[in-house]
């Protein structure tokens, strides 16, 4: 509501209308009204340092409190990328946890144990941050679980499955195919690297990495008996995801992708208690406590031009600059989006585990004509084109079609997909045949 007006009210007259003396006046903290303000990240909400920190803790506590699927006294696994937001969130979470543990505060302990999870993606980035992550986590004296991203190739999401199978992506008669076969003892590192490199576009690589990182984090939470997985997403990140996912054709799972509370794997609830805080606020928090974090990777303009995530990030940050409620508006809009369940298959995507829209398989083919038998015959059968739809489309969501389509194989080259994908596809096949 408040946010709506800001965006439309971008009229250039608003600042001109302010009387000159109002601009110069020292503005006091809006909360305690006693001290002069130190931060004014939300533009209309100046706060002193103390009030700012308690504002952040309050937002965090509210979000934790609103998580309905999270039972009291359970263990929480906190995902840490080491970036600004997840770094600050770890500190906030830890302090909240310690405070809650303190019997004097008179509160019931909300969680039992907390731990940190880190996915090491150095195989892809060529840069290891493991040492830095250890330095960040050590002072908290809580467990740190580290897994390399290539481990995705050897995990099973099914409790009672020891029949390891693998998916080979190959070209057959000029068409891409997924083939399920017995695991031939592939090397995880090589498989990860080859899969990543077979995808030409950064935009699609991003999708792949986002998907498998999230699956791996969920898996870690599940096997280590942490029923709650805490992600460090800021509202800024969520707003970027809303735009970016929309542009990548991932809208069909937007409610899951941006939910404050959701379940991707059975028995693991994902929460995002930083979802109402801006990235700039986390940065300010780190600054106040002098907390070390892994700096964001800097990209040059030609790299940015190949990434939907980075273009979306730039778009949101430009708008946020001029209309400070952009992020909150986008997030609150997305929160209100509900999808019509009847349009969805009961089966979830084998790769990203998100819902599949029933029409996704034929959608593109039904809206385009790629073959013409006779240009003078207008009584052609348009449904003929459906025969050309790749078979793997039925196991995947629209966004993952794009991802698998983009895999670019050299002649006779094959790449592998993680084992859990085979598991999911097998389940689908046996469910639809029975």
């Amino acid at each position, binding site marked *: *509501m408040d*946010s*709506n*007006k800001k*965006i*439309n*009210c*971008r*009229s*250039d*007259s608003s600042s001109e*209308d302010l009387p000159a003396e109002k601009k110069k006046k020292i503005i006091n903290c809006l909360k305690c009204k006693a001290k002069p303000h130190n931060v004014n990240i939300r533009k209309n909400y100046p706060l002193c340092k103390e009030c700012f920190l308690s504002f952040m803790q309050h937002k965090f506590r509210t979000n934790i409190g609103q998580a309905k699927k999270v039972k009291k006294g359970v263990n929480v696994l906190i995902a840490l990328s080491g970036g600004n937001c997840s770094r600050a969130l770890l500190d906030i979470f830890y302090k909240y946890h310690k405070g809650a543990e303190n019997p004097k505060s008179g509160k019931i302990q909300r969680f039992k144990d907390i731990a940190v999870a880190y996915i090491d993606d150095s195989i892809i980035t060529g840069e290891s941050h493991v040492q830095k992550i250890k330095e960040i986590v050590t002072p908290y004296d809580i467990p740190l679980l580290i897994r390399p991203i290539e481990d995705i190739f050897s995990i099973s999401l099914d409790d009672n499955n020891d029949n390891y199978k693998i998916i080979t992506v190959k070209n057959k008669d000029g068409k891409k195919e997924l083939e399920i076969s017995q695991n031939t003892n592939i090397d995880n590192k090589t498989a990860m690297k080859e899969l990543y490199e077979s995808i030409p*576009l950064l*935009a699609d690589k991003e999708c792949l990495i986002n998907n498998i990182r999230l699956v791996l984090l969920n898996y870690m939470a599940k096997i280590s008996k942490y029923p709650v997985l805490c992600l460090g997403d800021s509202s800024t990140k969520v707003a970027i995801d*809303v*735009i970016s*996912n*929309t*542009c*990548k*054709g*991932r*809208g*069909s799972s*937007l409610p899951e992708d941006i939910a404050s509370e959701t379940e991707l794997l059975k028995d693991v609830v994902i929460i995002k208690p930083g979802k109402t805080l801006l990235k700039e606020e986390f940065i300010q928090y780190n600054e106040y406590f002098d907390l070390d974090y892994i700096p964001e990777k800097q990209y040059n303009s030609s790299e940015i*031009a*190949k*990434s*939907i995530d980075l*273009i979306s990030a730039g*778009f949101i940050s*430009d*708008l946020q600059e001029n209309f400070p409620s952009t992020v909150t*508006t*986008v997030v*609150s*809009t*997305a929160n*209100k*989006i*509900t*999808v*019509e369940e009847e*349009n969805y298959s009961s089966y979830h995507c084998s790769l990203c585990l998100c819902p599949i*829209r029933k029409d*996704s398989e034929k*959608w*593109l083919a*039904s*809206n*385009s*004509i*790629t*073959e*013409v038998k006779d*240009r003078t015959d*207008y009584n*052609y059968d348009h449904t003929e084109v459906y025969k050309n739809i790749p078979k793997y489309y039925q196991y995947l969501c*629209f966004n993952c079609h*794009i991802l698998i389509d983009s895999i670019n194989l050299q002649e006779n080259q094959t790449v592998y997909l993680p084992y859990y994908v085979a598991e999911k596809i097998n389940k689908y096949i046996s469910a639809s045949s029975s």
Partner: protein
Amino acid sequence: MSNVKPNIKRQKRVCDICKVGKPVIKRPKTGQMVCKECFYFVFEEEIHQTIIQGNLFKENERVAIGASGGKDSTVLAYVMNLLNKRHNYHLDLVLLSIDEGITGYRDDSLETVKRNARQYNLPLKIVSYKELYGWSMDEIVKEAGNKNNCTFCGVLRRQALDRGAVMLGAKHILTGHNADDIAETVLMNILRGDVPRLQRCTFITTGNDSMIKRSKPFKYTYEKEIVMYAHYKKLDYFSTECIYAPNAFRGNARVFLKDLEKVRSTAIMDIIYSGESYENKSSNTLPSMKTCERCGYMSSNKICKACILLEGLNKGLPRYLIKKKTLINYNFLFI
């Protein structure tokens, strides 16, 4: 970029569809290189498929094509006329044009529409802001300044089209909104936080039988292809943009879309796919249609948007809008 090899390849390249013709366009939707003849076929027939799958028409329906003289509506009139004959839709097509009263812009484009009407042998009705509302767009801008004029114009045009359709006895209006426009609207509605509009902006048809329906046969047609089609078919259209530029916010979204398309040419289709996921059927039928207390025209509120705007104009619009700090009051005016 590199020297000899790709050049040889390009010379030998044939149309991806007929394998014979010389390719003249790379289709953003499919990535195929196609020849002129194949392009005509897929361009026209994809629109036909959209019409069939969207179940757009009833036989013998009188359908008004919103014609501005610009490329979209010119191609729309041409293709609708063609498909109506080719596939026997049995539609009674008429052209409906709005004269906003924008000197230099509308005068010339109206001449184009008049020529189109003769070329395609379709009846034409022109309704003007001045006669409907007592204000021309030039007069409005003079009074209200250069801000938000797309908003005002959009509201007035929308109602003018409806009224024109009523005069013509048509209950169905076709507009030239293309895939690019729809993708842009999806993004705009997310950024503006307009959930109801987000939930219906990808519908191919809005409204229902009890009111005037609006359909977008170009929902899955790329702007670039519309331009190419008009160019190759040598269609007679007016190519100057409206002299009153769109607001900066929409401009941002447009630049963003162009950047996205450079990453992936299907981005526009991908956005429409996403937008369809956000659809909500209940947001299509507006709650309890009433008639405006002032002008007697159908409206979802006691007083219709056009009347609110005109009231503002008659009272002196700039002060009226700036005074209201919450622009929520006129947020609903956005189309």
